């Protein structure tokens, strides 16, 4: 039995110190993903809190033979999506023949011009653009680009078809590429 499964087993039995140790082992990973998704500390902290509360609620459901990281990633991804939904209602998800594709494509609010004024460096511009991506594209991009998860793993965790995830990634990359072109034009080819 690995250290993680031992901790989960003990935490599921009510051992508070085991749950705390579990959080301490994984909070950095969770916070990193949450920040990459949210782009700010306030939301990242809320998401990370939600993740560990969900972990606590789901301790009984963790299968000892399952991969803890996959299980944790699944909770993190869903928490990211749920967080946006809870705190920024009013998206325009539409049903249709490709509902699976569209459901994660609800556009976010566009940031004000003051946000853009501060985005002078390419990295910053791209980071801002990631923050503007629809949440489905954003979580797929974050998990693929930063976390190195395979598209099939992301698809399994989100309960989507792999083709849908590929389209999400392509759409995200396309938008980042456009943002890169914009900043290169603005900077006169400096980048």
């Amino acid at each position, binding site marked *: 039995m690995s250290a993680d499964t031992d901790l989960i087993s003990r935490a599921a039995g009510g051992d508070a110190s085991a749950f705390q140790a579990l959080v301490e082992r994984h909070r950095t990973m969770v*916070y990193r993903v949450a920040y990459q998704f949210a782009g700010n500390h306030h939301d*990242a902290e809320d998401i990370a*809190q939600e993740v560990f509360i969900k972990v606590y609620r789901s301790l009984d459901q963790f299968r000892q033979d399952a991969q803890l990281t996959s299980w944790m990633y699944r909770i993190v991804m869903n928490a990211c999506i749920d967080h946006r939904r809870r705190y920024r209602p009013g998206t*325009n*998800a539409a049903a249709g023949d490709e509902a699976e594709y569209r*459901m994660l494509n609800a556009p976010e609010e566009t940031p004000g011009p003051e946000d853009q004024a501060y985005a002078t460096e390419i990295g910053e511009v791209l980071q801002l653009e990631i923050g503007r991506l629809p949440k489905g594209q954003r979580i797929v991009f974050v998990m693929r680009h930063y976390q190195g998860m395979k598209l099939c793993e992301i698809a399994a965790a989100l*309960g989507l078809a792999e083709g849908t995830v590929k389209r999400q990634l392509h759409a995200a990359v396309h938008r980042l590429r456009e943002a890169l072109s914009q900043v290169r034009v603005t900077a006169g080819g400096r980048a």
Partner: protein
Amino acid sequence: MTCERHTSGDLDLYFYDELPSGEREDLGRHLSGCEDCRAALDELHAIRAALASRPDVAAPASGDWSQFMSRLESAVARERSKSPRVLSLVAQPRRRYVEYVAIAALLALVTFSVTLAFRARHVPSPPRAAGSAQHSVPATTKDNSAFAAMSEEHFERSKLVVLGLATKDAAHETPADWEYERELATSLLDDTRLYRLAAEDRGLDALAGVMKDLELVLLQTSLTDAKDPSALPQLQRLIKRRDLIEKMDVVTTTGL
């Protein structure tokens, strides 16, 4: 003109090493002769380099986890008070309704298991696929009975959403009229995913399929903007297109 290998998304998959080896080699050869794709690949490298230059943020702003941990501890304490995990050495006073609910759940489970056992004896087996084990009994029969009972309960709760949405008059409903369904859909979504995954693990493909459809409808419901006048009709079409009510009825009336 933009090369279609670039617009199809193949280049992204190449960049992220997600192409099968044959296609990867093929695209590699294509890149040597396609300036458009090479430029696009350069952009991807530029994006990677630019994002890599961003600070790696993996802790709260202060760098101190103590506030985070104490906030989490409070939240977990609230969770614990709702459903204690520990059987304390000192007996906790229990509320009577909890006992009643537990007894009712146990009775429902026993009744359902007996019903399933009765059906297993008296209902002809469904046709099996050629080559399947004709006489083998799944090792998880007992687990599946309990799982079936839980799934049925879950379907009953979910029906409140699905039937609620399907029977509304889309032309005259206001957003507030289906706020209840939206909230309930949100609260049921995580459990639905867990049930689907559990059904997949148990090889209960038909049940997993219905759970997947249900999950899609719940997700769509919880994400949809209720103020959008086209939202309710779209959800109703989705429920109809997936035959969700009929499928849920079949599962709950015939069991697994």
